[in-house]
């Protein structure tokens, strides 16, 4: 099944291709816009521009929600595209997902820029209800409803995947590869993409169902303030949902590497026992690790914090020991010719693998005491998002419009790729450096001593934005050229 499917994407995936291509354009444009928001925030922190703090925090909220959203959207598009190689997925469901997603985007953007909601993408209880007079409860409700719409869209998406996987591979246990892992039979073994799809749909559906409960509680609290929830319980639920959701984006996007890299190396990405085991570990770890967001909540039972630290570390093992290691093994000596898509996809895996290190370090209780909520935190997640998920998404997009006749990188491609890598690396390293300099995150105004780093970061951000602009334009032009 795995080997047979290489290169036949035209046959099955073609019906899904137009909407997926459109989605990637949409995500690309949103990524770019949100990067501009990011640059504005960094420039304001660097004192390069004047920005009203209220507007800064609106941008902060939009940047967070928008980036998580477009990462999720691009990841979902990638996973759908490749799952359709093995499953007879219904395009109508995808359109429903996309429609609900866009409805959610409208509600969220409206709540932020019309309603003035600036309570950050994490909507940490009880901040949405206690704005200090900046926004009305209605704006926060609209924001939550936006999330609900996106959640419902994803639920439909995962239900379709789940039903089709369950039917095709004899239950989700088959799709997860656990029959093979525990039963030993490799009959009808699913390809890596299906293992990934099954794993993501399991943990993200749990996350969404939980998230819906939390959102309902938040909405009730906003409308009927006497219904407060326990703040610590709310914090747990919000971080569980948020952590699982943002992690799912990258675990969906990685399927692009499983499916595209073999066409370059000629070596199919195999479903091995280690591979299935690694994904089984991911399903557990992604749900258990969210405690590392609560290491400074000393009222949590001590064992949860220990679990947070240990599972943070453990999450790195399947990533570095299996995904990154396999990538290296598949590439080494394959005679692969580097072009833009495969370079970006490889960058995505490396950025993810390297970016997890500062995350693991920060996941230690003792370190967290000094690094929590400093710029170290955006430092590590920008490494594995900007240089990880986003790179994979642009790699996939570039692959969708690749010119089959040419096998190398043009001069412009090389320049863009290098600019993206250097700009991204510089940008994220400054975050880490700033975190080590104790600069707090999410501050609209920076003290003078901190401004130099923000100014430097703005320069790197500008480089990333320029490179991204070319990537998006290149993709858009590619779409036009290939359309009849």
């Amino acid at each position, binding site marked *: 099944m795995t080997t047979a499917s290489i290169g036949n994407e035209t046959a099955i995936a073609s019906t899904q291709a137009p909407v997926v291509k459109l989605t990637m354009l949409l995500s690309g444009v949103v990524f770019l816009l949100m990067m501009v928001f990011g640059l504005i925030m960094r420039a304001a922190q660097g004192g390069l521009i004047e920005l009203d703090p209220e507007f800064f925090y609106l941008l902060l909220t939009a940047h967070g929600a928008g980036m998580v959203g477009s990462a999720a959207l691009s990841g979902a598009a990638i996973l759908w595209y490749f799952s359709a190689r093995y499953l007879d997925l219904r395009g109508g469901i995808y359109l429903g997902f996309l429609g609900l997603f866009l409805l959610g985007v409208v509600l969220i953007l409206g709540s932020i820029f019309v309603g003035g909601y600036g309570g950050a993408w994490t909507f940490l209880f009880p*901040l949405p209800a206690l704005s200090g007079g900046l926004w009305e409860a209605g704006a926060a409700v609209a924001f939550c409803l936006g999330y609900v719409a996106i959640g419902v869209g994803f639920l439909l998406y995962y239900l379709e995947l789940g039903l089709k996987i369950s039917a095709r591979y004899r239950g989700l246990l088959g799709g997860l590869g656990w029959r093979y892992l525990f039963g030993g039979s490799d009959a009808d073994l699913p390809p890596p993409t299906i293992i990934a799809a099954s794993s993501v749909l399991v943990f993200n559906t749990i996350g969404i169902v939980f998230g819906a409960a939390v959102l309902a509680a938040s909405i009730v609290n906003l409308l009927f303030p006497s219904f407060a929830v326990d703040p610590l319980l709310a914090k747990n639920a919000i971080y569980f949902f948020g952590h699982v959701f943002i992690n799912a984006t990258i675990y969906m996007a990685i399927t692009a590497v499983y499916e595209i890299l073999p066409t370059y190396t000629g070596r199919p990405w195999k479903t091995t026992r280690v591979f299935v085991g690694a994904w089984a570990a991911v399903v557990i770890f992604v749900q258990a690790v969210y405690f590392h967001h609560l290491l400074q909540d000393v009222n949590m039972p001590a064992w949860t914090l220990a679990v947070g630290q240990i599972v943070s570390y453990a999450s790195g093992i399947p990533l570095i020991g299996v995904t990154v290691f396999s990538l290296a093994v598949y590439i080494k000596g394959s005679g692969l010719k580097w072009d833009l898509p495969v370079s970006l996809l490889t960058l995505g895996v490396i950025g993810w693998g390297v970016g997890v290190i500062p995350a693991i370090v920060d996941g230690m209780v003792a370190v967290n005491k000094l690094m929590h909520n*400093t710029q170290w935190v955006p430092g590590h997640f920008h490494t594995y998002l900007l240089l990880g998920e986003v790179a994979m998404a642009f790699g996939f997009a570039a692959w969708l419009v690749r010119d089959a006749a040419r096998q190398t990188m043009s001069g412009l491609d090389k320049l863009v790729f290098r600019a993206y890598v250097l700009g991204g690396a510089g940008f994220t390293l400054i975050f880490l450096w700033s975190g*080590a300099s104790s600069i707090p995150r999410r501050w609209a105004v920076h003290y003078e001593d901190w401004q130099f780093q923000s100014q430097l970061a703005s320069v790197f951000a500008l480089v990333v934005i320029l490179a991204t602009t070319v990537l998006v334009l290149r993709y858009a032009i590619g779409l036009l050229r290939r359309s009849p």
Partner: protein
Amino acid sequence: MQTTILLITLVLMAGVLTLILRTVRATDGPAPSQTVNRTRSWLIWAMIAGGVIISVASLREWPHADAGGDALVVNVTSGQWWWDTDTTEIPLGQQVEFRVTTEDVNHGLGIYDPDMRLVAQVQAMPEYINKLVHTFDEPGTYQILCMEFCGIAHHDMTYEFDVVEAN
């Protein structure tokens, strides 16, 4: 401390990066040898062993240790967007237990030394009292900055106290 953490992290990142890049760039070299699966198992077991050692070493002494019996208790309350403490003078070398809470939304109590380096932090939560134990060994004016996003004046939510030598 932060510098050490940064350096260790950068070294680890550079190490992993170098290893990957060496293999990834060897597209025209020899294919991986037959022992590659053994190498992978070795890597995974080494990471597990390393994890056990790091976990035991870093958690055996619990980082959120309780205060001793003679600790000075300082109550800290907060709200949008202010801090308030029992005292603004804390004796040098005396173990202090901060009992932190808030009247409205989540805040984060970040204690900065006179060089603006974060020395300790804990979350401030409504309905809960979070304890933070710290012993100051440098005199001077310390600052409290808010570490958890709490609305429009988050960055203005600062406070000062002094660490003074006991007479």
